[in-house]
């Protein structure tokens, strides 16, 4: 089982202009633990929506790479979005699922993946261009190639340990993080 903080830190090292969207809860804390960044956008509500936000952003910014980093619980709540992404085939979108097989934020109850539900196979069935199940940090270099350059959509299922991590809490002001993100990503607004 991977250390989620170490994995996320390796994936986001020297991230350049990568746009990152994170799901509410532990995935947001993992990304925040790498340091506050204006090209991070994190959701604090609407569980299940993170992949949809990544899709809308990837379609709006075909000139930029977009990474969704979220948990298994969030993805399960919006599982249909994998099929929606499969239809649109956004080449610049990658989804990283930190699968600890538990709902860490609510008391470590088992998630569906603990019973063997395989989200990587789901992504394959939904026509993701590259799909990997990650069990070894040594494979991170290859995964970075996907994140930063491979023609997507890409899907990385990282099997991470369910050990508790200290919470690193970024801003909860949605208006502020939106404005900061728009300015830092140089979005052309109409």
């Amino acid at each position, binding site marked *: 089982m991977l250390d989620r903080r170490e994995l996320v830190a390796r994936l986001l090292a020297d991230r350049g202009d990568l746009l990152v969207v994170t799901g509410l809860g532990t995935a947001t804390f993992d990304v925040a633990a790498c340091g506050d960044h204006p090209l991070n956008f994190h959701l604090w509500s609407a*569980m299940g*929506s993170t992949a949809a936000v990544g*899709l809308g*952003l990837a379609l*709006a910014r075909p000139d930029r790479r977009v990474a969704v980093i979220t948990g298994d619980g969030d993805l399960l709540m919006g599982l249909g979005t994998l099929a*929606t992404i499969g239809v649109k085939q956004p080449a610049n979108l990658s989804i990283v699922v930190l699968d600890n097989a538990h709902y860490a934020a609510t008391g470590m109850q088992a998630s569906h993946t603990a019973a063997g539900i395989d989200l990587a196979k789901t992504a394959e069935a939904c026509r993701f261009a590259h799909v990997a199940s990650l069990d070894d940090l040594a494979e991170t270099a290859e995964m970075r190639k996907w994140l930063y350059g491979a023609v997507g959509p890409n899907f990385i299922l990282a099997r991470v340990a369910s050990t508790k991590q200290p919470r690193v809490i970024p801003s909860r002001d949605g208006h502020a993080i939106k404005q900061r993100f728009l300015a830092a*990503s140089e979005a052309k607004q109409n």
Partner: protein
Amino acid sequence: MAEAPSAPPDAAAWPDHIHAIFRRTGVAQVGYVPDTGHARLIALCQQDNAIIDVVLTSEAEGPGLVLGAALGGRRAALLMQSSGVGNCINTFSLLRNCGIACVILVTMRGEFDDFNPWQVPMGSITEQTLKLAGFLTYRVEREEEVAEIVAAGCNMAFGGNLQVAILLAQRMIDRSTGHH
């Protein structure tokens, strides 16, 4: 949905008006779940290279898509049936939390001579649900009103980062899709 015949050759022009307003307003993404009432508007968006159409598995995906588009500096709209509004209640929270402009066109069911009474529970609370979720709501009863109200709704939404829902009366939809 499946019970409805396809639009007759003399199909109403209101979907064309809405599409033209989308073009004029710079709506760049349109999310939808297939729907009889919206069939022509969906087809117009699909054929338009300036609009990315996104077919959703559930309306619940829509607010996330709209937020993502906005983070990329693009305007987005959603097309759904009144039943779909119920699927979005929690995900609508994204739009208010972040001040995201959103225009939703809602085809009404369960409000006028609907053959399916199971549409009534959601159809009868659609407008109130939208209001509770923070939307400004406008009703369109007649075709002649469509262009004016949709244009005004788009101006309100995109001019002020507001959430606007425009409810298209079942009576009007049924007339234009040949239900009656």
